[in-house]
């Protein structure tokens, strides 16, 4: 398993009680989200819908790469950025 530092956006502070940085260990992006869900129940469904897809207006970056496949492997220590996409009105 690789060490992962997850940067949490303000959108999700209500789930993390304001925690901005979370450290987990995971082999895939899906495992990152599962670990976050264990720590902060309800958070994962705000990022991933019931069809296991990242919601259209959420972006998840592994380092600088925007990824949408939860099976994306994580083999080395890395930072994951969860951010809200530009949208609105």
């Amino acid at each position, binding site marked *: 398993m690789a060490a992962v530092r997850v940067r949490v956006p303000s959108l999700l502070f209500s789930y993390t009680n304001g925690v901005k940085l979370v450290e987990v260990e995971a082999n895939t992006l899906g495992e990152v989200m599962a670990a976050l869900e264990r720590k902060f129940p309800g958070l994962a469904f705000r990022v991933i819908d019931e069809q296991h897809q990242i919601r259209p*207006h959420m972006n998840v970056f592994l380092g600088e790469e925007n990824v949408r496949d939860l099976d994306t492997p994580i083999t080395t220590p890395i930072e994951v950025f969860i951010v809200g996409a530009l949208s609105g009105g």
Partner: protein
Amino acid sequence: MTQPVAPAGANAWMIGTRKGAWAMKSNGRPHLSEPWFFGHQVHHVVQDTRNPGTLLAAVRTGHLGPTIYRSQDSGRAWTESAQPPKFRTKEEYVNSSFDADDLRRQGLTVDHVFFLAPGHATQPGVWFAGTSPIGLFRSDDDGVTWRGVEGFNDAPALSKWCYNFAPGTPDGPKCHSVQVDPVNPKRLLVGLSGGGLFLSDDLGATWRAINSGVAMDFSPPKEDGTEYEYGHDPHDAVIHPANPRRWYHQNHCGIYRLDWNDGAKEQRWKRIGNNMPKEVGDIGFPMTCHPKNPDTIWVVPMDGGTVWPRTSVEGKPAVFRSRDAGESWQRLDRGLPARAWHTVLRQAMAHNGGASLELIFGTTSGELWGSRDEGDSWQSLAMGLPKVMSVTSARLD
């Protein structure tokens, strides 16, 4: 009209908007609370009429998707549902008998919860939720967890009834007007936009269309001369709480009444909107019924001509009331602006159920208008709110 029965002793309105929800005490001078769920879209906030206290709110943000919050202290604290409404995964439909192009096979995702309704008085803790895309969900634990109503969400014909979940309406297809018969706890009525009205007499296990007599001007006449069985666009439907054999609904194609007749071969809607002034027409969103008098209803006509602006007809806002079950109508515009081009959405009109009945409606331009004389005159209650999407009454501490 999304709440035929108001909570006993209602003293407040709950306003769902595009950017949050507000409570407004309705006794004395109107006073808006600080917002709940500020920045979130709030499609509906409803109090349990069986146990005034529990509030449920249908909430979504553009980024984070939909959920349901609940409060048991008049909105001071809210807790998110532990299991919000979710469709089945596409994997669960792999072996279904559905057509290959049935969208359920590709996996539906709840975009927003649109409608909340407490269950029957004999079923405490039961709630129903209608969603977009079209789905019907049920909670048996007072809104904490939700599951799909299988008889509806998994009905093989559902995709045919609702244009295969196509996003035909501007904000997405909706399951709305979830009505629980106050006498028969097994009878449920739901409205699908689009799709039509559907009735269950076994608490949601099986459903049948109930659209006879309803126009469908947006489809060509059937070649065999028969009516369409489904595919209609009801906007707002109600089973009258004082006479559950009397139903009303405002449709995309008119205003209708149904008087249930057990001996009839079919139940048939009558277009009471034909009695509206021709220059006004009978297109609109909300249908509001008097809580005790089954003959008294209110509608808010909108412009359904040319390109369907859906705003006040000729820019002259008015509510229309009938006191004889739609056989005649009175225009009620005293106190309303002489000119305005707002829209009153289907869930944005309500009454407080009181002996001295109060009415309220909210507009897409963020105004609230109230009446204490059953609509004879109207007063401005608030301005400057975000787009009003729903109004209900509540008894708040």
